[in-house]
């Protein structure tokens, strides 16, 4: 898969130079709680909790490695060493997310944050915050996957007035994830993606 991008400075409202939109998105196994829950047939909360401890991650790793061949058939680039790193990363980010959500919902901050959310919701269309959040939502939902992979999402950002900000930030790799993400895992449900019938042959024994 190749990723091309036009200099944002060159992207104008008349820019019709939309790139080839057909791209191949290779499937990736990313150990999110939803996906692990599905593959290991464990409760999502149990998986999320396990991911946040060394012992829990080891248990998940061992169970996944029992199905290495099946995982290779799902994701040809599957790599056991990378899986360990991904499990640690997932645990770290989950822990951060739990603390963040507890913080913004804490009684001490709830009032202050409520005002902040209301202020953000009052931003007009094409406000830089609104545009950035909407682009992220599109990427997360997989809706903009093709646009993103072809670099056309940068054109969208430029056309909505974020060209300068995105250009400088993307040069440093700061603004958005650097590679197209896979859509939310099958079975996550929020976006209505149906789960596969049989994720991993032989998986699902109770722990």
């Amino acid at each position, binding site marked *: 898969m190749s990723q091309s991008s036009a200099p944002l400075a060159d992207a104008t409202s008349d820019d019709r130079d939309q790139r080839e939109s057909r791209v191949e998105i290779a499937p990736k196994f990313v150990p999110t709680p939803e996906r692990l829950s599905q593959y290991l047939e464990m409760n999502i909360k149990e998986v999320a909790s396990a991911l946040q401890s060394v012992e829990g991650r080891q248990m998940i790793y061992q169970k996944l490695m029992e199905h290495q061949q099946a995982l290779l058939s799902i994701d040809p680039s599957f790599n056991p060493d990378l899986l360990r790193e991904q499990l640690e990363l997932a645990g770290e980010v989950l822990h951060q997310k739990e603390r963040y959500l507890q913080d913004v919902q804490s009684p001490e901050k709830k009032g202050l944050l409520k005002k*902040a959310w209301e202020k953000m*919701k009052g931003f007009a269309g094409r406000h830089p915050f609104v545009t950035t959040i909407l682009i992220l939502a599109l990427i*997360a*939902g997989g809706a903009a996957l093709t646009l993103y992979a072809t670099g056309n999402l940068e054109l969208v950002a430029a056309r909505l007035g974020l060209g300068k900000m995105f250009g400088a930030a993307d040069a440093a790799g700061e603004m958005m994830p650097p590679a197209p993400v896979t859509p939310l895992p099958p079975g996550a449900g929020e976006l209505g993606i149906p789960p596969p019938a049989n994720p991993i042959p032989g998986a699902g024994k109770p722990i």
Partner: protein
Amino acid sequence: MFEALSAKLRDGWEVELEHGDIRDDAAHRAMRLQLLHLHDPTLLAFVKRGSTLNDVDAIVALMSTTTLKNVSDADLAELCFALGPVPLTRIIGDLLKQAKTDDELEGIQAIAFVRHSLLSVMTPSSSR
């Protein structure tokens, strides 16, 4: 950046500096996106509509007419986490350069509140 604003606009505002060594690499950003859960019907409808569009003009038109007006607080919190503190800092900087009213500064303050929460959980404890 704040000092560049007019004295009249700065009047009544105080600046609090953020401290901490943030490590926010591509792998963390990608994982945060993978852990994002959207439930808000408004946002889901927007994403669903976006998924039917394949060209820049159509996406720009959709985004130009979409606001966050009816989005739930929970989903906004989720999206801010997935975005992370660095892009929010970029947005704050961009907005500060153009701020002309107290209302605009209040908007910047709102984003800064959320960024503060993100920084507090993403800064390694040794650097806080």
